[in-house]
């Protein structure tokens, strides 16, 4: 049917544009690699091998993209409702910290209760942390950018500077290690489970260097749920209406304040899941520095993904690959600064092409009829 072919065409255009910008970024990146007296070809092949060169590399690329997909979603969803959530960083910290506390505090719960409890507690607290600027915006018209930035600082102070000190493990700027019962399933443990060890690939997964854990799948599920929410539910219809045209939405009897609070709560919870996964799956305690700027990178991930939940998965994978492959580049002698620079170039060109796309759309609209 015609409508599907149109849709596929527009998706392909989006994908093509994103791909083109990545290629342009890599070409410009060669200039900077020359500055380091290394061969760009070697550097990029290291990047590729590091991210996709082996089974381990691919799996760890997925692992690294997990928190980025989630923070990307946390930015993309409010974006659709006309809100700019800069606060994924703080929401991630609050979620991670809560999960860390729940993870070590309860000592005698079975996994089937402890793990879901820690996840939900973390997401809920992060949801409140995201919902608060939503309430401020809806009731008092406080701009969400200001509110979320400020809440980032408060979250940092609360968790890293104050919280960790309360529970500090000797010699480590972190909360005590979580109980085994709260830890997320890690794929390198596949051999230890009776049913899973018979699955194909279980041997491949069972190397200590494999870091992939359950949260990657939770992130993908979250993306699918948010896609369904945005495009198939009444709530999603209302969110998008408010995002496109608040006056029109008001005319249609949609309460913007309700949409704003709901969307900010959900987005906070999703950002929180990023922190939960880092604590319960990657580090097994809430650590200083574990946020690694994921909340801010999430903004770029969301934009590269065209703020579409499925696009965000792809955006997250791209950044995960850059992070994972970037390590290999460093091993091959490219300074980490250049690696960061190339990552920044990709963001820059994707953003620039986004502007180009808006320009094209405008021209087309102008070109249409009258």
């Amino acid at each position, binding site marked *: 049917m*015609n*409508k599907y072919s*149109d849709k596929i065409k527009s998706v392909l255009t989006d994908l093509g544009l994103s791909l083109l910008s990545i290629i342009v970024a890599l070409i410009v990146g060669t200039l900077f690699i020359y500055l380091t007296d290394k061969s760009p070809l070697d550097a990029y092949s290291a990047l590729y091998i590091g991210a996709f060169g082996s089974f381990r590399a691919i799996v760890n690329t997925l692992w690294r993209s997990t928190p980025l997909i989630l923070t990307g979603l946390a930015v993309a969803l409010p974006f659709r409702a006309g809100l700019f959530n800069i606060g994924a960083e703080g929401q991630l910290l609050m979620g991670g910290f809560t999960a860390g506390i729940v993870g070590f505090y309860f000592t005698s719960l079975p996994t089937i209760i402890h793990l879901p409890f820690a996840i939900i507690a973390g997401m809920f607290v992060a949801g409140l942390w995201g919902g608060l600027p939503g309430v401020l915006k809806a009731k008092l018209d406080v701009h969400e950018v200001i509110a979320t930035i400020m809440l980032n600082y408060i979250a940092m102070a609360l968790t890293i500077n104050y919280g960790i000190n309360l529970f500090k493990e000797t010699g480590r700027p972190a909360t005590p290690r979580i109980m085994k019962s709260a830890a997320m399933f890690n794929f390198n443990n596949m051999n230890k489970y009776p049913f899973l060890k018979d699955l194909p690939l279980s041997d491949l997964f069972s190397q200590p260097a494999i870091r992939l854990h359950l949260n990657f799948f939770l992130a993908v599920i979250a993306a699918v749920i948010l896609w369904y929410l945005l495009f*198939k*539910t*009444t*709530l*999603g*219809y*209302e969110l*998008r*209406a408010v995002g*496109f*045209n608040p*006056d*029109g*939405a*008001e*005319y*249609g*009897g*949609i*309460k913007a304040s309700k949409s704003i609070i709901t969307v900010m709560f959900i987005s906070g919870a999703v950002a929180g899941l990023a922190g939960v996964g880092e604590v319960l799956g990657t580090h097994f305690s809430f650590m200083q520095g574990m946020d690694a700027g994921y909340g801010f990178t999430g903004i770029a991930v969301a934009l590269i993904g065209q703020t579409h939940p499925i696009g965000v998965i792809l955006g997250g994978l791209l950044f995960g690959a850059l992070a994972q492959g970037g390590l290999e580049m460093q091993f091959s002698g490219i300074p980490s600064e250049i690696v960061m620079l190339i990552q920044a170039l990709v963001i820059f060109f994707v953003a620039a092409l986004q502007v180009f796309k808006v320009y094209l759309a405008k021209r*087309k*609209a102008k*070109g*249409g*009829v*009258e």
Partner: protein
Amino acid sequence: MPREDNYILDMQDITKIFPGVKANDNVNLSIKGGEIHALVGENGAGKTTLMNVLYGLYEPDGGQIFYEGNEVDLDGPEDAIKLGIGMVHQHFMLVEPLTVTENIVLGSEPRSGLMLDQKTAQKDVKEISEKYGLFVDPEAKIQDISVGMQQRVEIIKTLYRGAELLIFDEPTAVLTPQEIDELFDIFKSLKEQGKTIIFITHKLKEVKTISDRITVLRSGKSIDTVNTEDVTKEDVAELMVGRQVLLEVEKTEANPGEEIFKIENLNVNDNRELPAVKDISLSVKKGEILGIAGVEGNGQSELIEAITGLRKIKSGKFELRGKDITNFNAREIKREKVAHIPEDRQKRGLIMDFDLKENIILGYHDLEPFSRNGIMQYDNIAQYTEDLIEKYDVRGGGMESQAKNLSGGNQQKLIVAREFSHDPEFLIASQPTRGVDVGSIEFIHNQIIDRRDDGAGVLLVSAELSEVLSLSDRIAVIFEGEIVDVLKASETDERELGKLMTGSQAEAGGESNE
């Protein structure tokens, strides 16, 4: 070669193709020096495209342009300006925080050293403004002056750059009736001074009033060029639409029933917290159309927003079927079988980035069968949309295309389709045909009358006096937020209403026909 010597401009076989659309298809347009030439056609007929080609904004895919006898190649507006072609766009291109003078000279400023030579600039502006009777305040900031004055600034801007041929793109769309009269006086004075004017419009009354000749476009083709005095409004309408059009509304005598809607002592403030609606009381009966006539900005918008739940009121109350709905919000009012065609379809009436099927359920999206347990039922919606698009003849895209890709007339039809399809018992129509082409106006008017004949009460607000007069059964005149009189439509005329609207009491003194 140009076809005749006295043509200042001759556009021959202009073709402009956009992806999927032939916006101009071998269009011919010849303009005589010193005439006022109306370029008319329905929305989407290709008028603006043709003028953008002339102004150098679009490169044509075919055809030739002769200006003052020579073939010209226009690469951009600079080329057009150099030749003496100026354009006043529908949406003004002015810098809001700068003064009138600064805006006029912007880009070709007289300088003294590095600084703007304010004195010379102001002198030049004053000269032009006096010569053509274009009153402006040279030192006022754009953001502080009226739309009419902003338009005069745009005109002076083109004259300052030496324009001999002035293009106006729908210049009256943004003006009040008084401002339209003033604009036409300016047209005449420009013509007296030897300037040539092309103006785009789809309002036939204006075409008859002011133009010398008319060129009609339809679906990208030039249909005919005629002398204004040789044709009637009906003739032009037929050329535009391609079939006979009823310009006069045909309706039977109203058969009013019991009262359906009542406003009592309503007071509403505007955005600056100043009183906009002052102590208004009105009532609408089933099966009648109550029109509200008034110059725009006299409280109509605030009144409508208040009774549709979009604006907080200060005091007063309104009742629907005897039920107090004063503090209902927009959603609750809709559920009371109240339909609302808002005055600004792009700001309120539609989500321009939504497709047709998402727009056609706006406000009803949480009701069965469109939504069930919080899940949108897009199959039902698609079926529903398909039916309505056909029934209301919404053209220009399927249900998957975005509302912003429709022409103004079809956008309006989309809103009408949505609002009329839930058996409204009370219908609020605000500027229902603004910016809509002739064929769609006829359609929308008939729909409103059909609703009335089905027993709905209708509250109509329009800046077009002729629309209020021809549709309404009773007319309430609003002036500075107050209802100055309520008249029977059959017992009044444009002159009497015009006087009431501008605050001069009618000679008869307000006899009320309530």
